């Protein structure tokens, strides 16, 4: 205890003690005379930093303290200061001589380690990026999102990222632990500045406490009031630049949907890429209230509203969450927000956890998956381990060649410690070379790797503290893990035996080496099998009959209604007729949803009129026009589709087969002419649509209700038969401009859009594949090196056998057999492991392949062939050798 600590306790910031570990390390390292001044300065700077942020202060303290670990400040009389240089020079000399002598051995070692390290690093940076989501901005510790789960008769049916509108309101009213909440809802409106039109993707209405709750602040404007009044809007920096060409936008106006003017009241910094949130524009929530009603602030049966809350510091979120069910029971018993059978549950999600654990309806951005991330982390570590094992194997195998060296050194008076030092130095040396090579590989590959995974390349590792920490971690553990065992083995040789020349490798060493090879191969085979299964599953999904025709289809985002409805319909008719008159455009339909995603319209409280109220359910609802069924090639199994000739279809609906059972119906034809009760209205069921894959075959069929809707639709789908796509699209653009003027035209090809649903699996498969290839290369390098030593050891045996008449194939089999045994053993052990792993991965799919023996046989056969090819270079070379060359020197 120095008196400094006592002082510290007494002053007001006593809770903020600078990081202790680095302090005590520095204290041990530093010259005591200098240390008081140094640590005092560090602490003073820390104290200054603490005024802004304690976390930053801690990080800065550490970074600053780290830089004091220099030779200049080193304690006098430290072991490092004694005659280190000549000893190291000697080590270096010996190391370089040894490496010169065994060039191939060094090359294999360095290559293997470098590949392993760079693969490990690429994966680890990916994993670190995923884990670092929403950790980068300040004051996020107490921010939670209220996620809503809807139940039907106790069965979980819909999970909303942004759920019940009034969630935040009711929680804040009832729990003093909640400091404040903000309520948000997405806007798909178009905005214009001086008749320049834009369509922001990430526009939301947000209530006034937004910035307070999120812990963000505006760069222009006042945080607490910017979103207070109706018709105010704040912009992200990039959108401010875009809309106002870099001028200060505060006080200027933005027109929304050609109807309402919003005043810009602030600008905020764009959120970092690794956040689950992204906002281009934030309108004040009061504007939304203005468009709808005051009720929206408190309603619990309107879904799709993001609610974020800030807890008072020190609140236990789990305890708070446990109080929610009682509150909801109380609210529902009052009847105010009562929906039959639609039980509601609130779950608190910490903002830092959302990216990896949340994948529900109305997420702001598509999120990642914790499972995949951890899986990859494990693969990354495995590849690294394989590389280290290689080093251990090759070094110990090579040790026989150096046994004499060790013997002579010991005779000349080397201590064991010095020998260990020498071999550790060699290990460090190889690791350093490998690490620099790996750094080059990583720097070159990183942009491609990130771009492939769909991430912006501006995330730079070297700026992150963890990068340097893990780099030194990998380096140190590499030296220790891969260096210690070989140096202990080498230094323990008995000089007498080695110098007598009868030295051979111990049985124990052999077993360990074999064990390590088996482990390497085990890992490789699991990786190959994994890749193979992932791709087979993807193929299987893609080959499924979708029941819906998505070929040759272009989808347009519908224009925003800016005037009254009748003009909208007129415009749509003009547009449709123009398009259909064009030779390569065959058909067009409008709808509220297209295949390839879960329909946004999710409605509860629906039942047949004949069903009792408690049997009402939730269904996904699609609004479609007369042409939709034919357009998408859907099949009507009973009744009819919507048809102009039947007159007004507005009170008729279609249902799909999946909806039948919840409607209490046995057969499709039973549904016909039944009355459907839907939000205080009654509809007549006129047809049943055969189940088709609205979402990818990854998930099972959902109950759908098709309502007739021929005016306000989100999507216009167009079917075309053309070889000259650009020309057709140009035609489309031209007509769009004629009919809808300056409105931005957004379109995509439906099959691409549909296949995006497989993107996560595809990425997973590719990373899996890439790293299994790397793992195999490293493992093969190891096997190659090992084979060269093993065959060399048996040179004499082979020569004698040859003299005695053994044939080439005899010899080859004999030499290869040993390695093959190891590989086969690894395959056997891997079977249950990969079976279990892949089976648990496949359970996440509604439609999956069955694990069959061939799925494991193919990768296994592949691996056997690769390993035979690897060892054959040496075995063939040995078997073809002239026996006289080997035997002559005996």
């Amino acid at each position, binding site marked *: 205890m120095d*008196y*400094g*600590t*006592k*002082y*510290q306790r*007494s*002053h007001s910031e006593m809770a903020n003690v600078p990081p202790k570990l680095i302090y005590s390390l520095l204290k041990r390292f530093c010259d005591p005379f*200098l240390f*008081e*001044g*140094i*640590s*005092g*300065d*560090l*602490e*003073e*700077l820390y*104290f*200054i930093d603490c005024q802004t942020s304690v976390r930053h202060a801690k990080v800065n303290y550490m970074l*600053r303290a780290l*830089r*004091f670990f*220099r030779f*200049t*400040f080193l304690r006098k009389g430290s072991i490092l200061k004694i005659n280190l240089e000549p000893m190291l020079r000697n080590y270096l000399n010996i190391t370089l001589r040894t490496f010169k002598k065994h060039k191939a051995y060094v090359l294999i070692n360095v290559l293997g380690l470098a590949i392993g390290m760079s693969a490990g690093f690429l994966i680890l940076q990916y994993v670190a990026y995923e884990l670092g989501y929403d950790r980068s901005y300040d004051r996020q510790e107490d921010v939670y999102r209220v996620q809503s789960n809807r139940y039907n008769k106790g069965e979980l049916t819909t999970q909303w990222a942004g759920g019940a509108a009034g969630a935040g309101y009711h929680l804040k009213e009832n729990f003093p632990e909640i400091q404040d909440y903000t309520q948000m809802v997405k806007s798909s409106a178009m905005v214009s500045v001086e008749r320049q039109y834009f369509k922001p993707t990430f526009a939301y209405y947000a209530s006034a406490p937004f910035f307070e709750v999120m812990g963000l602040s505006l760069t222009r404007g006042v945080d607490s009031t910017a979103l207070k009044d109706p018709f105010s809007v704040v912009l992200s920096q990039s959108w401010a630049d875009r809309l106002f060409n870099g001028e200060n936008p505060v006080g200027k106006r933005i027109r929304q949907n050609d109807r309402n003017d919003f005043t810009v009241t602030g600008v905020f910094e764009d959120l970092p890429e690794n956040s689950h949130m992204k906002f281009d524009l934030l309108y004040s929530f009061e504007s939304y209230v203005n468009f709808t009603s005051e009720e929206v602030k408190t309603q619990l049966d309107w879904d799709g509203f993001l609610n974020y809350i800030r807890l008072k510091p020190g609140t236990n979120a789990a305890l708070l969450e446990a109080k929610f069910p009682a509150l909801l029971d109380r609210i529902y018993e009052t009847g105010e927000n009562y929906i039959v059978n639609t039980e509601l549950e609130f779950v608190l999600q910490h903002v830092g956890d959302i990216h990896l654990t949340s994948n529900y309806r109305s997420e702001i951005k598509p999120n990642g998956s914790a499972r995949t991330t951890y899986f990859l982390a494990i693969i990354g570590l495995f590849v690294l381990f394989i590389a280290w094992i290689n080093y251990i194997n090759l070094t110990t195998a090579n040790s026989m060649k150096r046994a004499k060296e060790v013997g002579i050194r010991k005779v000349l008076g080397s201590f064991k410690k010095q020998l260990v030092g020498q071999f550790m130095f060699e290990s460090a040396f190889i690791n350093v070379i490998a690490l620099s090579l790996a750094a080059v590989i990583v720097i070159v590959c990183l942009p491609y790797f990130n771009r492939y995974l769909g991430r912006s390349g501006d995330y730079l590792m070297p700026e992150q503290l963890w990068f340097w920490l893990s780099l030194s971690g990998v380096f140190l553990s590499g030296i220790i893990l891969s260096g210690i065992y070989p140096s202990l083995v080498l230094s323990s040789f008995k000089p007498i035996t080695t110098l007598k020349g009868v030295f051979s490798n111990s049985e124990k060493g052999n077993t360990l080496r074999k064990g390590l090879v088996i482990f390497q191969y085990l890992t490789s085979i699991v990786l190959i099998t994994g890749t193979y299964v992932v791709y087979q599953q993807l193929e299987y999904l893609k080959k499924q009959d979708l029941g819906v025709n998505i070929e040759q289809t272009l989808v347009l985002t519908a224009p925003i209604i800016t005037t009254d409805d009748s003009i909208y319909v007129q415009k749509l008719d003009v547009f449709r007729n123009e398009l259909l008159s064009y030779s390569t455009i065959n058909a067009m339909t409008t709808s509220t949803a297209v295949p390839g995603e879960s329909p946004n319209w999710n409605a509860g409280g629906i039942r047949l009129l004949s069903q009792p109220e408690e049997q009402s359910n939730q269904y996904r609802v699609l609004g479609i026009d007369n042409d939709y069924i034919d357009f998408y090639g859907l099949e009507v199994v009973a009744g009819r589709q919507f048809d102009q000739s039947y007159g007004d279809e507005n009170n008729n609906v279609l249902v799909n087969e999946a909806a039948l059972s919840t409607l209490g119906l046995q057969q499709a034809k039973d549904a016909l002419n039944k009355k459907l009760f839907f939000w205080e209205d009654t509809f007549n069921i006129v047809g049943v649509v055969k189940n088709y894959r609205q979402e990818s075959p990854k998930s099972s069929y959902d109950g759908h209700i098709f309502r007739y809707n021929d005016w306000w639709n989100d999507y216009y789908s167009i079917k075309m038969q053309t070889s000259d796509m650009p020309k057709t699209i140009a035609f489309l653009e031209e007509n769009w401009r004629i009919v809808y003027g300056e409105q931005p035209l957004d379109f995509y090809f439906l099959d691409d859009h549909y296949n995006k649903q497989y993107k996560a699996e595809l990425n997973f498969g590719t990373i899996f594949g890439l790293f299994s290839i790397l793992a195999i290369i490293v493992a093969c390098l190891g096997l190659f090196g090992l084979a060269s030593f093993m065959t060399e050891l048996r040179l004499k045996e082979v020569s004698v056998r040859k003299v005695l008449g053994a044939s080439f194939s005899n010899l080859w089999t004999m030499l290869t057999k040993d390695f093959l045994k190891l590989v086969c053993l690894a395959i056997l052990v891997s079977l249950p492991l990969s079976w279990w792993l892949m089976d648990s991965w496949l359970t996440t799919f509604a439609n999956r392949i069955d694990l069959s023996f061939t799925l494991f046989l193919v990768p296994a056969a592949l691996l056997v062939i690769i390993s035979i090819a690897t060892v054959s270079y040496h075995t063939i070379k040995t078997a073809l050798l002239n026996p006289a060359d080997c035997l002559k020197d005996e």
Partner: protein
Amino acid sequence: MKGTQIGELEELILLTVAALYDDAYGIAIMKDISTRANRKISISTVHAVLKRLEEKGFMSSRYAGATPERGGRRKHLFRVTAAGEKALKQARALRNGLWDEIPKVAFGNG
């Protein structure tokens, strides 16, 4: 480098120490340089240069002035010695000499 020769950073820090006179310790020096020369130097660099200068005999140091912000630790305060002063003067003389040598036309019309 032996002798009285000093590097640019060393000169800057020597001068700063002289200017700060009685309050020349790590942070004060770092801050003074950052405001005056608009140059960011890490605290460890400052300490390293200070130590080097003291070893060369251009500076002397003592410990004094503990504050609570420093966790009760004293400041390591520096002062320029006579040798340091000589080195600074030499450096200045060298520069002045060079400046005097520069013909007027060398800097053009500017």
